[in-house]
C-alpha cells in the first residue's frame, strides 16, 4: 500500500487536497438545485474520507517527526506562510473528522428541510476548517482555521437549530471568540518577541519552538491567553456553560460535529501549542494544581449535573464535560500512558458521543421531544435502536472491551504516578458515569411503555443503520485492538513529552515481566 501511494505522489498533494476539496465542492453545490445539495455533499465528504484513509499508511509508527511538511510563503513580509504537516496526533484527528463528516451528512438527510444548499455548503466549509486546524504548522494559519470553524457552526446552530437557537448560537460564537482574540494578541506578541531576539520574523511553529528562550517573563501571560482560548473550547469548568446550550439547540449534525471534533480542537491546542510553548509555566506547581483541580471538577461535576438533566441532549453535553476532564488530567499528568490515554479518549469520545447524538437525533426526528420522561419501555418497540444505544452508552461508561475503557484506563493509570490523590477522586467518576448513563438508558428504553405515542415508533431505517454501524464497529474494534492507533500516536506523544519534560534516558520496551513462565505460545 505504501508503495502504491508513493508511486502516485500521494504525500505531495494529499494535505492540500483535503483542505481544498470541500471548498471546490461548494461551487457545484450552490449552483445546483436544493434537493441535490445533500447528494453533492455526501459525494464530496465520502471522497474526502476515502482520500484521507491513505494517510494511515503515510504516518507509520516508525516515523518520529512531522510528515508531509509543505511550506508556501503567503504574506512574506510578515513572515506568514501556508505551512502544513501531519504527525500521529494530527492523523487521528483528521481521520476522525473525515469519518464523522459523511455520517453527519447522512444523518441530516431528512432532518434539514429548508435551505439545504446553504446548510451543506456550510458543512463543507466547516470540513475545510476542521482539517486545516489540525494540520496547520504556521501560527497565523492555525488562527485563521480556528476562526473559520466558528462561522459555519454559528449559522448551522442559528438557522437550523431548536427553539432557543439564537441565544445558543450567539453565546457560542462570542464566548469562543473572546478566547481566541486573546490568543491572537498572544500570538502576535510571541512572534514579535522572538523577532526582537533572533531578528527573524516568522509565524512558523518550528521557529517558535526553537526560540522559546526569548520569551522571558512574558511567558506566564502568553500561556494564560493561549490556555484561556483552549479552555473555553475544551471546555473546562467554569468556561463550559456555552456547551449545553449549543449542543441542545444545534441540529443533529451540528451536535455531532461540535462534540465529536470541535471540542478536540481545544485539547489539541493544549497538546500542540499551549504546553510545548511554555513548558515551565504550564508544568509549574501552581498551574498544574489549578489545571488538575479544574479537570477533577469537570469530571465529577459534569457527571453529577448530567445525572439530573431532564433533556437527553443536555445530559450528553454534560457528559462531554466529564469525559474531557479526563483528557485534561491525562495531558497534565505528563506520562506516556496518560497522554496516550488522553488522545484515545479524544478519539473514542468522538465515536461514542457522536453516536449518542445521532441516536438522540433519530429519536427526535420521530417524536420531536428530547425529554427523557416522554419515553420509556421503547426497547420492546425498537429493539435494534435500543441495542445500539446500549452498546454506545456502555462504551461511554468505559466498559472494558469497548473503546471508552482504553482511554480512561490509560489516563488513570498514567496519572496515578503523578497525582495519586487526584486520580483516586477521578476514578470515582466511573461510578457516576455508570449512574447517569444507565439511569437515563433505563428511563428511555426499559420500564413500562406508558406513553401510547411510543407504541408506533419505527425502528432504524437502512440509512440510519448505515450511519450508526460504522461507528459501532469502530467502538468495538478500538476497544479490542487499539494497538495500531496507539503505535501511530506514540512518536508524536514522545516528542510532546520531550518538549515538556526533557528526559535523559531513552524509554524501555518491556514485554511480559521476568516471571517463571513455562511456555509462551502465540
Amino acid at each position, binding site marked *: 500500500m505504501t508503495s502504491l501511494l508513493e508511486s502516485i505522489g500521494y504525500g505531495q498533494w494529499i494535505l492540500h487536497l483535503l483542505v481544498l476539496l470541500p471548498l471546490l465542492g461548494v461551487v457545484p453545490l450552490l449552483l445546483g438545485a436544493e434537493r441535490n445539495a445533500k447528494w453533492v455533499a455526501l459525494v464530496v465528504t465520502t471522497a474526502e474520507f476515502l482520500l484521507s484513509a491513505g494517510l494511515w499508511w503515510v504516518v507509520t509508527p516508525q516515523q518520529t517527526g512531522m510528515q508531509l511538511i509543505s511550506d508556501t510563503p503567503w504574506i512574506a513580509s510578515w513572515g506568514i506562510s501556508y505551512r502544513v504537516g501531519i504527525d500521529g496526533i494530527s492523523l487521528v484527528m483528521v481521520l476522525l473528522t473525515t469519518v464523522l463528516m459523511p455520517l453527519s451528512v447522512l444523518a441530516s438527510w431528512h432532518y434539514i428541510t429548508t435551505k439545504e444548499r446553504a446548510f451543506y455548503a456550510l458543512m463543507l466549509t466547516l470540513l475545510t476548517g476542521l482539517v486545516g486546524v489540525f494540520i496547520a504548522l504556521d501560527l497565523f494559519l492555525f488562527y485563521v482555521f480556528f476562526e473559520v470553524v466558528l462561522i459555519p457552526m454559528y449559522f448551522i446552530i442559528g438557522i437550523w437549530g431548536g427553539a432557543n437557537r439564537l441565544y445558543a448560537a450567539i453565546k457560542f460564537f462570542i464566548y469562543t471568540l473572546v478566547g481566541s482574540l486573546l490568543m491572537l494578541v498572544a500570538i502576535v506578541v510571541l512572534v514579535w518577541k522572538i523577532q526582537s531576539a533572533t531578528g527573524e520574523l516568522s509565524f512558523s511553529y518550528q521557529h517558535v519552538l526553537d526560540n522559546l528562550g526569548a520569551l522571558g517573563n512574558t511567558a506566564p501571560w502568553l500561556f494564560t491567553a493561549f490556555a484561556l482560548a483552549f479552555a473555553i473550547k475544551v471546555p473546562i469548568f467554569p468556561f463550559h456553560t456555552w456547551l449545553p446550550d449549543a449542543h441542545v439547540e444545534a441540529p443533529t449534525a451540528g451536535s455531532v460535529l461540535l462534540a465529536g471534533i470541535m471540542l478536540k480542537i481545544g485539547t489539541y491546542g493544549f497538546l500542540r501549542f499551549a504546553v510545548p510553548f511554555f513548558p515551565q509555566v504550564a508544568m509549574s506547581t501552581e498551574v498544574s494544581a489549578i489545571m488538575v483541580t479544574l479537570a477533577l471538577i469537570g469530571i465529577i461535576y459534569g457527571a453529577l449535573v448530567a445525572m439530573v438533566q431532564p433533556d437527553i441532549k443536555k445530559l450528553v453535553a454534560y457528559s462531554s464535560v466529564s469525559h474531557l476532564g479526563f483528557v485534561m488530567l491525562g495531558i497534565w499528568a505528563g506520562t*506516556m500512558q496518560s497522554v496516550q490515554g488522553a488522545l484515545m479518549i479524544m478519539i473514542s469520545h468522538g465515536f461514542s458521543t457522536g453516536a449518542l447524538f445521532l441516536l438522540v437525533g433519530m429519536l427526535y426526528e420521530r417524536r420531536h421531544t428530547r425529554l427523557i420522561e416522554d419515553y420509556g419501555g421503547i426497547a420492546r418497540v425498537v429493539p435494534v435502536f435500543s441495542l445500539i444505544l446500549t452498546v454506545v452508552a456502555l462504551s461511554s461508561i468505559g466498559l472494558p472491551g469497548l473503546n471508552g475503557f482504553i482511554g480512561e484506563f490509560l489516563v488513570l493509570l498514567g496519572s496515578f504516578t503523578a497525582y495519586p490523590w487526584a486520580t483516586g477522586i477521578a476514578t470515582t467518576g466511573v461510578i457516576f458515569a455508570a449512574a447517569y448513563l444507565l439511569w437515563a438508558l*433505563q428511563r428511555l428504553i426499559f420500564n413500562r411503555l406508558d406513553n401510547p405515542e411510543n407504541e408506533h415508533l419505527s425502528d432504524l431505517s437502512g440509512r440510519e443503520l448505515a450511519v450508526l454501524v460504522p461507528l459501532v464497529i469502530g467502538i468495538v474494534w478500538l476497544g479490542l485492538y487499539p494497538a495500531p492507533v496507539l503505535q501511530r500516536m506514540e512518536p508524536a506523544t514522545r516528542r510532546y513529552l520531550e518538549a515538556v519534560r526533557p528526559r535523559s534516558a531513552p524509554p524501555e520496551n518491556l514485554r511480559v515481566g521476568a516471571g517463571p*513462565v513455562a511456555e509462551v505460545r502465540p
Partner: protein
Amino acid sequence: MTNLVWLTVALPLAGFLVNGTLALRRPQAKSLVSAVGVGVLLAAFAVALGIFVELWRNPPHAPIIVTLWSWLPVERLQVDLAFQVDQLSTVMLLVVTGVGSLIHLFSVGYMGEDPGYARYFAYLNLFIAFMLLLVLGSSFPVMFIGWEGVGLCSYLLIGFWFSEKANADAGLKAFIMNRIGDFGFLMAMFFIWRAFGNLNLVDVTSRAPQVLQPGGAIVTAITLFLFLGCTGKSAQIPLYTWLPDAMAGPTPVSALIHAATMVTAGVYLVARTNVLFAMAPVSSSVVAGIGALTALFAATIGLRQYDIKRVLAYSTVSQLGYMFLGVGTGAYVSGIFHLVTHAFFKALLFLGSGSVIYAMHHAYHATHSHEDAQDMRNMGGLKQYLPATFWLMLIATLAISGIPPFSGFFSKDEILAAAFARGREQPLYYAYYAMGILAALLTAFYMARLIAMTFLGSNRTGEKERAHLHEAPAVMTGPLVVLGVLSLAGGVLNLPAFVGGGAALERWLDPVVSPAERFFKLEMPHGQAELFLVGAAVAIGLLGLLAGFRSTLARPIPPARQAGADTGLARLLYRKYYVDELYDALIVRPIVWLSRIVLWKGVDQGVVDGAAVNGSARLSQGLGWLGSRLQTGQVGVYVVLFLVGALWVLSAVVR
C-alpha cells in the same frame, strides 16, 4: 489442547452473536437457539476437560500463557490479550463450563415459553464468555474485562423482563454497586502498576516478595482495594444489597450468576493473588472478618424471608462470607473447595426452586390466580407433587448444613477449622470462628425451614391449583440429578486425612498457593482437636436442622394473602435491617439533591451561567445603555456637548 484455551471464550462469544442475531431477526427459532446456546457450552466444557487432562498428566511448574494479540502497548505498559492456564484456572474453568452447561440445559425447559428465549441465551452465552475471560486472564486488565463484563451481563439478565420497573431498577442497582467495587479494583491496579511497572499476574505474584514490604502500607492498600472490588462483585458487606434484588431475574440466572459463578469471582481473585494477601495480615484479617460478619448477618436475614429465592439469595451471601473467611484465614484451598461445592449445591437449590416456581406458575396460570408463585407461604406439601425435586433439594440442604458425607460438610468444616487454628496466633480469629459456627447453625435452621415450608406439611396452594402441580420435564430434572450427585459426592475432591483421603484438591492447587505459605503457614489442627471441631460442626448442623423442621412444622402457616404482617424482631429481619432504606437516605438522595439543587440550579445555572456569563452580557448591555444616554435626540443637548467638546479641544491646543 492448552493452546486452544481461547476456544472456551470464543465459543460462547460466537453463541452470543448467533443467538443475538436470531433474537433480532428470528426469535421463534427456538430449537436452533437451544442447540447453539447449549452446544457451545458443552463444547467449551469438552475443551476444559481436555485442558484438565493435559495438565493432570504433565503438571506445569509455572502457569502456561497463551497470547492472542498485543492489546495495550504503551511504552513500558505492555498488556497482551492472553490467557493463563494453571491449576487454579482449570478448576474455575471446569466449574464454570460444567455447572454452566447444566444450567443452560435447565433453561431450555424453564424459559421454553418465554418470548425472549433467544435474547436470554444470547446474554447467557455472553456471560460465560466474560466469566471465562475473568478466570483465564493472564493480567489484571484482561481479568478486568471479564470482571466488568459479567457485571454487564448480570445487569442485562436481572433486568431481563425489563417492562417491570422493579426489574430494571434491580439491574441498575447491581451494576452501580458493582461499579463501586470496580473502583477498588482499578485503584489496586494503579498501585500495582506504580510498584511493579507491570500488570501481569505471573509477574506480580512472583516478584511481590522483592518489590513490596510484607505488612507494609502499599501491599495493604493494594489488597484492601482489591477486596473492595470483591465486596462489590461477591456481595459482601457493605455492597451486598444488590444480590437479593437480583432475584428479579429468571431463576436459572440466579443459579448461574448469583450462586455458582459471577459472585465467586471475588473469592477467585483473592485466591489468585494469595501471596499479596498473605503479605498483608491486616487485609487478610479484614477479609476474614467481613466474610464471617456477612455470613452471620445474611443468615439472620434469611431466617425471616418468605420468598423462596430470597432465602437462597441471602444464603448465597452468607456462604460467600464463608469462602472469604476461608481465604482470609490463609486457607485458600478451602475457600476454593467451598466455592466448588457451593456451586454444586447452591445451583441445585436454585434450580430446584426453579422447578417449584415453574410448577406453581403453571398452577396459578391455569386457574388465572394472581398469587405469588414464589412465596413459600403459598406452598407446602409439595413433596407428593414434585418428589424428585424434593429429594434432590433435601440432598442440597444436607450439604449446605454441613452434614457428612455430603460435600458441604468437608468444605465448610475445613474453613471453620482453619479459622480456629489461626486463632492461636491471632485471637481475633476465634471471634470469626464463633460467628462462623453461629452462622452454620442459622444456615441449617433456615434451610430446614425452607424445605419444611415448601415440601412438608399440608398444601396451601389451593384446591383448584393442586391439580396442576406436577414435576418438571426431564430436561429440567436431568441437570438437577447431576447436581445432586455432585452435591452428595463432591467431598471426594478434597477428603481430609482423618477419613483416609488424599486431599486431592489441596495437592492439585499447591503450586498456586505455595508462594503465600512463605508468609503464613496455617497449622491445621490434628488428632483430637480436629475431631472435636468436626464433631462440633456436625452437631451444630444437626441441631439447626432439627430446630428448623420442628419450629416450622409446629404450627400451621397461613397462605400469603391471609398472613398478617410481622412485628418486632421478625419484622426487622424481614425488612433486612432496613439497610436499603438507610443507603437510600444517606447516600442516594443526598447525592441527587446535591446534583440537582446545588450543582445544577445553584452553581451552573445560578453562578456560572447566571452571574458570570449572562452577567457579563448584561454588563456590556448596561454599558451600552449608559452610552446611549448621550443620544437623546435633542438638538439642545447636542449643542451643549458640542460646546463642551470645542472648549476642551481649544484648551488642549492653546496650552
